[in-house]
């Protein structure tokens, strides 16, 4: 695939639209520094890959390069784009890429949007067809790991290299979850405590030897250490309880009070929430109404007596109608009916009284439930802080133990004890007050002296209790850390004073054997991740070695030998390699550049070769990788190649460029060095390439001007000299005839530009194009016919080598026709 043309706008140095046509063999650009030369390379690189190597290599400072693809002068509503036409024989494809926000791109293949280019799938492992000066140093004058990365990129193995980096990141930067870290820190702390203790030295040593010693080895040493305290005849199952008992016994002799304050359990916390809700909402409107109804029961006994009295009266009345059952006097019917009515009323009142009595029972039951809950709640809190508060009388003694070595723990626990004590007292007072109010309500119910104020006060006191209970819970929770730290400090201090430090460590190790085993498992797994990284490294290095040590080295050596001059000292590059470690493994992410000095290997080739040789080597490396591979690109873009080369090596490099073209590569060279460019053109004169000069640069972009490969008159003079040279061979004559056609194309292109204002590159013109253009320019038919003869009679030395000399006259005639055409370009005399 060769590049035919490139157009760009809004991208890098291009603001206004610019279009460049490439010669199918050699195109040369000259521009002073900062005239937008590199924008041409970058436009093409970005079009093909979606990024430029300059930005990619500056990955660490992406922000600095953010949005740098867009030309700052390009209108905000415009879409920067790069378009290129590529050809392969008669086939042509047009690639267009538009630059979107956040450096994203949208691609079109022959006008149709595509996600990726077709050649990305076919041959994406091929090296990139760019030789960029800034990239050459990254190949050689860098740390071995960076060189490795640059080589991988050059050889199209950057994805493989990225995989390798991912595994390195996993092995070196991975942060285990907090739970895992906590366990490891805890276990490491236990063994750190064993360190420096005479009887436990072996335990610590065995633990550290993770690769060589198993958990059984470590715990055998722990058991052996335990036996020094318990005697050798102790049963294994008895070791831990006996050690604990030994330690406690000795500790109690120093200080008997433990520091103990537990957090509320989940169940307790849940119950506390329910209780608080119950207390705070105990006195409701409904309860108050129910309670006040009970007041009506004050006459309850009287109602019962009255009902019984009327029942008996009516019974007597039924037996002796007409006689008052109370006094025995005669009764009339009206009075008797009055007695019966009074009985009915009394019975009705008694029924109501029974209902109220049931309510009284309910209220009493509610009060009983409240009493139980209140008691249970208060007991729970009291029990929670009991042990901790029991410490209060012993604080003075505790101070004597902790003050010196653990002053902050002591201060914290003293404060905590006082706070919990205060909260406990306030809770006790609230409990007593609420209990008192509850009793008052109970008495009021029992004595049928219900008053709303009594029940309302209970409600207030219960709210007060709930608040104190809440506050107490919070105080306990806030004191737990202080209590735990002080307990640990006390335990430690007691171990020191009681001489049980080693025993304490042994107890911890025995109690936490499962944790130690898990930590060992985690440690092993993390080591396995490092092993995996080594495996990946080895496989990736093997792959890289296969590529660099074989074809690449021989290819690069071939080109490097060409660039060498006979005057060079015998200090030269001799190949690439991946060095090995002492154990024979390939050194990870390492590529060495080998060199010899007068037959002897140099220890460090990169430091031994001069900058110019490294530059030459970098060029050869890029050329070698491009020429070796099965590359889909038939072109090679070489940006500023001759930096630091002297004149002799520049000339050698011209040979290399010519050879690349002759081997079939389409070459595009860009340079700021005009004299070298002229030298290159002269050296490749017969290739008839295309030469562009960037003559200026402003905010619209670079001014890219086509320049003649060689001055027309110089060409005509050369042709004339060949024709007149009787010793000129057939190849020279063939070259002269080809040159004549080129002169005609060039003159036609100039005439057309003058007449029509449009430039058509002469390199791409054929006979038909020339005739058509000359006709459009109004050139005389007779001359056009002569020009046609130049093309029509074109002979090739390869086709008629025997009688070619006889054509010398014809070439001389064609020469005169060409001169006639060129004369049209000369300014007419007034």
């Amino acid at each position, binding site marked *: 695939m060769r590049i035919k043309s490139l157009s760009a706008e809004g991208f890098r140095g291009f603001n206004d639209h610019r279009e460049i046509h490439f010669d199918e063999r050699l195109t040369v650009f000259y521009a002073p520094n900062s005239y937008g030369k590199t924008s041409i390379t970058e436009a093409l690189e970005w079009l093909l890959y979606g990024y430029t190597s300059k930005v990619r290599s500056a990955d660490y400072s992406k922000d600095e390069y953010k949005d740098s693809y867009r030309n700052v002068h390009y209108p905000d509503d415009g879409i920067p784009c790069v378009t290129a036409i590529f050809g392969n024989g008669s086939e042509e494809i047009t690639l267009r890429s538009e630059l979107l926000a956040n450096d994203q791109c949208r691609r079109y293949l022959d006008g149709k949007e595509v996600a990726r280019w077709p050649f990305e799938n076919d041959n994406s*492992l091929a090296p990139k067809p760019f030789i960029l000066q800034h990239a050459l140093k990254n190949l050689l004058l860098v740390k071995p790991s960076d060189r490795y990365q640059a080589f991988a990129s050059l050889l199209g193995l950057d994805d*493989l290299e990225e995989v390798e980096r991912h595994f390195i990141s*996993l092995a070196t930067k991975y942060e*285990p*979850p907090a739970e895992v870290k906590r*366990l490891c820190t805890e276990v490491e702390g236990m063994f750190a405590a064993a360190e420096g203790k005479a009887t436990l030295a072996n335990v610590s040593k065995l633990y550290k030897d993770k690769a060589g010693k198993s958990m059984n080895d470590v715990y055998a040493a722990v058991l052996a250490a335990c036996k020094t305290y318990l005697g050798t005849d102790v049963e294994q199952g008895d070791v831990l309880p006996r050690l604990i008992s030994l330690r406690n016994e000795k500790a109690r002799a120093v200080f008997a009070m433990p520091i103990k304050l537990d957090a509320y359990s989940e169940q307790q916390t849940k119950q506390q929430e329910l209780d608080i809700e119950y207390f705070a909402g105990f006195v409701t409107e409904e309860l108050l109404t129910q309670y006040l109804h009970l007041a009506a029961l004050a006459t309850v006994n009287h109602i019962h007596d009255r009902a019984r009295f009327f029942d008996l009266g009516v019974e007597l009345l039924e037996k002796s109608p007409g006689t008052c059952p109370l006094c025995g006097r005669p009764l009339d019917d009206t009075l008797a009916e009055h007695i019966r009515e009074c009985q009915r009323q009394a019975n009705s009142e008694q029924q109501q009284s029974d209902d109220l009595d049931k309510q009284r029972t309910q209220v009493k039951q509610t009060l009983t439930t409240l009493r139980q809950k209140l008691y249970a709640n208060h007991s729970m809190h009291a029990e929670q802080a009991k042990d901790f508060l029991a410490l209060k009388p012993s604080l003075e003694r505790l101070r004597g133990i902790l003050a010196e070595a653990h002053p902050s723990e002591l201060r914290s626990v003293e404060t905590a004890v006082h706070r919990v004590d205060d909260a406990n007292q306030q809770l006790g007072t609230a409990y007593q007050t609420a209990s008192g109010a509850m009793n008052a309500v109970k008495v009021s119910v029992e004595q049928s002296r219900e008053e709303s104020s009594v029940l309302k006060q209970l409600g207030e006191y219960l709210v007060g209790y709930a608040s104190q209970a809440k506050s107490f819970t919070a105080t306990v929770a806030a004191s737990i850390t202080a209590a735990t730290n002080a307990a640990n400090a006390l335990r430690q201090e007691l171990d020191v004073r009681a001489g049980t430090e080693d025993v304490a460590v042994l107890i911890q190790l025995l109690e936490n054997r499962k944790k130690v085993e*898990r930590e060992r498992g*985690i440690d092993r797994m993390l080591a396995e991740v490092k092993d995996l990284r080594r495996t990946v490294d080895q496989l990736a290095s093997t792959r890289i070695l296969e590529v660099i040590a074989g074809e690449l080295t021989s290819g690069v050596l071939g080109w490097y030998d060409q660039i060498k001059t006979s005057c060079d000292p015998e200090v030269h590059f001799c190949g690439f390699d991946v060095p090995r470690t002492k154990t024979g493994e390939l050194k990870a992410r390492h590529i060495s550049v080998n060199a010899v000095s007068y037959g002897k290997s140099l220890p460090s080739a990169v430091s031994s070769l001069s900058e110019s040789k490294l530059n030459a080597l970098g060029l050869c490396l890029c050329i070698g990788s491009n020429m070796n591979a099965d590359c889909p690109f038939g072109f090679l873009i070489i940006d500023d190649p001759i930096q630091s080369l002297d004149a002799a090596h520049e000339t050698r490099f011209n040979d290399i460029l010519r050879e690349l073209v002759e081997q079939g590569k389409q070459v595009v060279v860009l340079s700021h060095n005009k004299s070298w460019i002229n030298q290159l053109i002269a050296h490749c004169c017969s290739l008839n390439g295309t030469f562009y000069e960037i003559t200026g640069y402003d905010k619209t972009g670079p001014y890219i001007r086509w320049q003649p490969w060689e001055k027309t008159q110089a060409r005509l003079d050369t042709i004339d000299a060949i024709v007149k040279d009787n010793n000129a061979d057939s190849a020279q004559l063939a070259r002269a005839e080809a040159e004549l056609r080129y002169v005609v194309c060039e003159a036609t292109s100039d005439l057309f530009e003058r007449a029509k204002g449009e430039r058509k590159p002469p390199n791409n013109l054929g006979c038909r194009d020339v005739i058509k253009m000359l006709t459009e320019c109004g050139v005389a038919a007779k001359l056009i016919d002569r020009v046609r003869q130049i093309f029509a009679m074109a002979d090739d030395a390869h086709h008629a080598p025997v009688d070619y000399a006889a054509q010398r006259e014809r070439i001389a005639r064609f020469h005169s026709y060409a001169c006639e055409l060129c004369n049209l370009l000369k300014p007419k005399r007034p």
Partner: protein
Amino acid sequence: MTRKESCSKFIKQLEQEAENPLHKRILRAYSKDSSVEAMEDELSRALLEVVNRAD
């Protein structure tokens, strides 16, 4: 062969040659989603299994 295919082949080769179960797990996670995060997540899962293992 594309770069992606080349990498997949590379990982597959590693997976086939791996004997260590943890290596296999990590490589399998990577072959599904070629990111460091995928491997880190899998490794975290494996480590937490050890931490929370029933005695």
